[in-house]
């Protein structure tokens, strides 16, 4: 079946602009995660959604970052007033349900802030 998909694959923006990144999880997966990968680094957790529970936003680096999820489907990560340090690859993952379960990752969105 289809894997996790993300769009756009690449985004170049100017400092101060807002950007919106999209993630479509694997069908039937109730848990969805966002991670960030800076150049040459491992991934950092940003946010977690599970069903109708309140999301865990503890990994969001500042209040310029926000995320939403519609039911158990698509999620959007929004970064307001982008800064150069926001440049990174943003990866989305999903898992079948309650923890602990194997997470499957999308191809990521490469964000470059000029």
């Amino acid at each position, binding site marked *: 079946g289809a894997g996790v998909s993300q769009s756009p694959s690449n985004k170049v923006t100017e400092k101060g602009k807002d950007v919106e990144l999209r993630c479509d999880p694997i069908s039937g997966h109730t848990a969805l*995660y966002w991670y960030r990968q800076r150049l040459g680094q491992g991934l950092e957790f940003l946010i977690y959604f599970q069903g109708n529970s309140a999301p865990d936003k503890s990994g969001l680096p500042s209040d310029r970052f926000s995320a939403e999820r519609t039911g158990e489907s698509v999620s959007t990560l929004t970064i307001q007033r982008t800064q150069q340090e926001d440049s990174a690859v943003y990866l989305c993952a999903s*898992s079948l349900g309650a*923890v602990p*379960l194997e997470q499957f990752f999308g191809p990521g969105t490469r964000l470059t802030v000029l």
Partner: protein
Amino acid sequence: GIQVEQSPPDLILQEGANSTLRCNFSDSVNNLQWFHQNPWGQLINLFYIPSGTKQNGRLSATTVATERYSLLYISSSQTTDSGVYFCAVSNSGGSNYKLTFGKGTLLTVNP
């Protein structure tokens, strides 16, 4: 939070050689995954292995949870095995869904 250390940070092999990658973690885990990140950045799931031993073709992995480490074995390496290998874990307590990643092992397999 939980700490994850991977070794070696870099590894260069000739095609056909075998290798062992190690992942040490600082606390009890309920999830441990090994990934291969290909040159295009895609994370490919290799193993979901919070404990025990698994094998898939030329790859195998062992996690000894009580001693807080996991090993990834690559046998008869091929140039297509090149890339970064990540170990990621989630802690048994608290926010047990967050994966914490190591810094990875950069593997280069030369023909």
